[in-house]
Every structure is written in C-alpha cells, then in structure tokens.
C-alpha cells in the first residue's frame, strides 16, 4: 500500500561499502598484471577451499562472483556467447556467464571493445577447481577442461550434513584436500606453504568476526544498515577473502555503522517493517532493491546467502586448516540437512532479528538454491507466526524477473503485516 507521491531517496547506504568495489576492481587488475608476469590464475566453483589455492600464490577467482560482476555491470556479451555455444536460458546463469566469458577471452566471440575486460573479469585460467557444489558446476568444470585444455581438480563433497560436524565417514573431504595440496604443489613446482595457509585463515577469521558484528548490529531497531549493505561487502569473502584488505574494509563498515548507532542514524529513513531474505540474490539489482525496500519503509535485516560462507568466526581454526576448510564446505547452506538449516541458519537468526515477515527468493536457474527454501521458510514462519511471500528472479539473468509481480508480492506481504498489526 503506498501513497502516489514523488519519492525522495530513503536508503541510507553505508558509504564504507563503496571501497569494497574499488578493491575488487584492483584485485582483477592485479590478476591480469600477475598473469602477464607468468603467475598462475585459477578459476573455480565453490568457496570453501579458496584459502588452499591462495596460500600457494595462485590468483583465485570465484566463478559465481565473476558472473555476478558481469551481471551487475550489465555486460551483455557473456550471456550471448554462452547462448551461441548452445546453452539454454534455463541453465545456471552463473555457469552461462562464466562460460561465455571464457569464449570472449579466448577470442571466439565478438564484443564491443569499449568494454575494459580487465575491470570485470579475470584472465583465462591455468587451472580450474571444482567443489562439487552442484551438478551444473561439475559439467561446467568438465566443459572448461576440454574447451581451454586445462587441468581440473574436483573435491567431492557429500551432502547432507549436520551442522558443525565432519562425521567420521566424511573425513574423505580432508583426504581429498591433502590430494589437492599435492596437485597444487605439482602445478606451482614448489613445496606447499602451510604457514601462509594458517595466516590466510587467521585473516579470514578476522573478516568473519567483523561480519558477525554487522549481523549483531542488524538486530538493533532501527537497524543502522540493511542486508543490501552487507551484501555490498560480500566480495570480502568471495573475491578478497584471505587478503589483508578484507578485514580492514569490513572493519571500516563496522566502524561507520557503530558511529551511526551512536548518532541514531538508521539504514533506511523510516523503518516500519523488518524482513528476512531467504535464498540467493539478484546481483544485477542490488542498488535498486535497496532503494525499493527503503521506499516501502522496509529494512531487510538479514538473509541466508551471506550465511553460507564461514558464518561463525569461532569455528575457523588456523591450526587445523584442512579440518576448518572441510567443515566450512559441509556446513554451508545447501549441504546442511533441512532441519539443521531451518533451525540454525534461519530460525535462530530470524528470532534475534525480530522479523515481521519472510521473503523467499526462488532463483530461476538454480533449483538447488531454491528447492529447500519453501520448507525452511515454512518452519520459521510457523514458529514465529510471521507471513511469507515468494519472489522469482535469478542470480544474474534479468530475463527471469518481473518488476510488477515482484512489487505486488512484496506490497502484498506488507499489507498482511499491516492487517495483523491492526487486528492486535
């Protein structure tokens, strides 16, 4: 329900988040510069085993994050290049954009040269790492192996797990990571740098602590920041993680938010509703979504996506690096069993965040990230007595988004909340 009056801007963006984008751009440029000097570049799907690669001095680029960047920058050619390669629109959009990028970089697909590729994508990889995040990911790795003639290393991660445990039968993840270290040593021709790995995990622990602090700050009413601000720092984990600048950038965001709390400044102009975002995110619309919700007096106070990677700093143990990495992979959102995910990843958080309703995000080209969301939302909604709405979109492909339907579903949810408040 809204007044049909001209709108003033209401999302009060945390300004320190802007620096994350600059740091990511600098990272991509560094990848290109290093590659020209002969350094190795790795692309990969999945995030849990990143530190292992980075510690060996290989520049690692998380495929999903690269696709998200292309989508956010509205770079049209990657999608077209994938379609030209025979990929249907229904295929994972992260995969499509990424495969399309490889075709463009290889010179097999034309693009408008006014685009500076070095700002939006990494150089072609020398190796591909696959964490068996999904079946599309496995096919994607195999395709790149053949197309680019590069080695691929895959870690098979069984699912479904219980929170925080590596059951004895799944020690095989740790064993595979030991094999991965040998593979990396062969690639670099150097003995593996375990001290560097421990250092990177220490940095990651600091970053996780900063993000946990942001989550605590979002529990305040009104919240000094929104979930969209948090997602603006997401690259601290997906691209910059393990680099010293990541905790510094996050620390600056925390500092700004704490100053806001002291001065009574909130993340949006007039917080009336607090919603939880269950599911992935459309990276092409982060800024416009932040403003759209602010216009409706909604603070989106949390969500599941950022929770998937190293949610608890105390569980990162630099002295047990392989076990820490295996635990991270086996306790992320989509490797957990539903009950665990709903109870730990959603319910406890939603309760602390004092939410009024849940937005379930269905990602059109990712069934894995959408399939269990209904059950998880239902579990939380029943226990907290809050309403749910379902929205459809995609990671990076705008073709699967209808703004009018999105607006109706969100405004409809708010009208239910209003009606319930009036009835109390």
């Amino acid at each position, binding site marked *: *329900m*809204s*007044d*049909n009056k001209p709108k003033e801007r209401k999302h009060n963006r945390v300004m320190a988040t802007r620096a994350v984008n600059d740091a990511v751009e600098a990272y991509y440029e560094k990848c290109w510069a290093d590659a020209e000097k002969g350094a190795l570049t790795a692309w990969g799907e999945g995030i849990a085993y990143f530190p292992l690669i980075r510690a060996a001095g290989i520049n690692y680029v998380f495929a999903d994050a690269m696709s998200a960047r292309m989508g956010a920058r509205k770079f049209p050619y990657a999608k077209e290049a994938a379609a030209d390669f025979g990929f249907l629109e229904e295929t994972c959009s992260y995969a499509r954009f990424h495969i399309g990028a490889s075709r463009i970089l290889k010179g097999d697909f034309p693009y408008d040269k006014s685009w500076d590729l070095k700002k939006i994508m990494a150089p072609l990889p020398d190796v591909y790492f696959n964490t068996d995040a999904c079946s599309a990911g496995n096919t994607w790795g195999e395709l790149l192996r053949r197309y680019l003639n590069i080695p691929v290393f895959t870690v098979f991660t069984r699912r479904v797990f219980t929170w925080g445990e590596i059951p004895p039968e799944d020690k095989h993840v740790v064993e595979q990571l030991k094999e991965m270290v040998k593979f990396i040593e062969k690639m670099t021709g150097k003995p593996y740098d375990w001290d560097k790995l421990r250092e990177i995990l220490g940095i990651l622990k600091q970053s996780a602590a900063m993000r946990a602090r942001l989550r605590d700050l979002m529990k305040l009413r009104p919240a000094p920041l929104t979930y969209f601000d948090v997602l603006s720092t997401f690259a601290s984990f997906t691209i910059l993680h393990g680099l010293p600048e990541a905790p510094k950038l996050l620390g600056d965001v925390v500092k700004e938010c704490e100053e806001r709390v002291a001065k009574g400044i909130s993340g949006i102009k007039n917080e009336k509703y607090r919603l939880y975002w269950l599911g992935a995110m459309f990276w092409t619309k982060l800024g416009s979504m932040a403003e759209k919700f602010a216009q409706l007096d909604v603070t989106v106070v949390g969500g599941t996506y950022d929770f998937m990677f190293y949610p608890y700093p105390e569980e990162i143990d630099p002295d047990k690096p392989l076990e820490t990495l295996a635990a991270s992979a086996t306790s992320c959102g989509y490797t957990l069993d539903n009950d665990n995910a709903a109870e730990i990843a959603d319910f406890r958080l939603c309760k602390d965040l004092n939410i009024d309703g849940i937005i379930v995000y*269905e990602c059109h080209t990712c069934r894995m990230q959408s399939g269990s969301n209904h059950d998880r939302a239902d579990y939380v909604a029943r226990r907290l007595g809050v*309403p*749910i*709405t*379902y929205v*459809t979109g995609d990671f990076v492909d705008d073709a*699967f*988004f*209808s703004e*009018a*339907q999105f607006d*109706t*579903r969100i*405004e*409809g949810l708010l*009208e*239910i909340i209003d*009606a*319930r408040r009036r*009835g109390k």
Partner: protein
Amino acid sequence: MRIHKVKNYIVAGLDLGSLTAKTVIMDSSARILSSNVTQRGLIVDEEAAKESFKRALKEAHVSRNDIAFTVSTGYGRKIEGFGDKDVTELSCHARGAYYMNPDIRTVIDIGGQDSKIISLENDGSVAAFVMNDKCAAGTGRFIEVMSSALGVPLKDIGKLSLQSKKPAHVSSTCVVFAESEIISLVSKGVSKIDILAGIHTAIARRMYGLIKGVGIKDVVAMSGGVAKNEGVVHFLEKAIKSKIYLAKDPQIIGAVGAALFALDYAP
C-alpha cells in the same frame, strides 16, 4: 473491517489489470453506484484507465470533482493521475470478495496475465497468498490465444467445453507449448469441444497445484475475467471438490475492494 464515517461522499476504486481496466463508483454507505470494464488492445494504459473511469462516472451521474478519494489497484495501480493511494490487488480482491459474501475464505483470481490464490482471515483481510510465476501460463491471455488458435469466439469456449464427453489431454498451460499441442490434436482429428475441455482441465490442474500452496478453506470464490468462463469454473470445481461462489460480475471484485479501501481513506 473498518466502520465508515456517517457522511455523504463518493469514492472510486480502479482495478488497472494487465488486459482490462475496471472502475467502481461507491457511495459512503458502501453501495455500488456504477461499474465499468474496459478493454483497449492488449495492455491497459492511461487511455484505457481514463475511459473506464469516465464511463463509470457517467453511469453514476457524477463528475470527477465529486469523487472524495480514489484507490487504484492491479498492475497499473501506479499509473500517475488516477489513485490517491494504491493497494495491491491481493488485498483488494480479498476485500471485494468478502464484501460480496462474508463467508468467503479463499479467492481464486485468474486475471489477464497472472493468477493468485488468496486465503482470507475471518475479517476479510489477507492471511496468505500465492501467485503463479512471471509467465502467462494458464491465465486469461492463455485462454485468448487458445480461443484464437481454435477459431472459437472467447465468449463461447466455456459453454462449448461443458459438452465434452472425453476431454483431450493437454499437458501444458504454456502459451507457446499448448498452442503447438493443440495444432497436433487438431491434426489428429480431436474435436474442438474436447480440446477446449482439455485446455480448461489443464488450467484447473495448474490452479489446484497453486491452491495447495495456501490450502483451501470454504467458501471458495473466483474473481477476475476468467471467472466468466463456465468451463474453467466447472473443471476447477471438480479439481478442488468444492463449489465455487461467483459474484454477479466477478471481474469487478478487485475494483470493489479498491473502492472499499477508498472509503477508509476518504477525508
């Protein structure tokens, strides 16, 4: 439900859907003075909205200046210059249906390009809702395309489908896939009547899947233009095993709800 102020004034409710513009003019005692449904082309634009509003005002013998407050709803609810306030069609269909029959607890709304199932609280407000995804599968637009593909006028397809003894199997409600499926059925010599019954059954099957998302509570009402299609209503009743309540004009239920909200906000 709010108690309206005892004062004489007139309000308007506009439901600017994807295919049609609907207007309801209402007095302060919540009596409907006039209603109008206008379709101009395949989308509702400012002109269609203006025309519908103008015709409804004329029928009620009032002018635009007599309207104390206007609420707009539907996908065009934010078109400038019409509503003093906008409310989603979810709340408006719920409220409009409840106004028609206070026993209604579930509303099935199949509009021009989307469909919704709305579960109502005992006071007529929305308890929960589900909507189809962004494609027009199984909606009014789908029926229009099928009617055109078969060369049967839209107004006749409902009645004709009720004559079927053996509905054809139509597996898809996707506008594109169903059209090719129908061409194939026609070429196999399946009668148009059986194909129409198959189309309506496919819509009913799809809606039943959506209904399970919120559960079904009697009394069930149907709103939107597709509620005028006896075939869809019949096959839907069979699917949900429940009688469907139909208002005299189910297409204006959203606009009625919007007018009722306008009464709440009228100065």
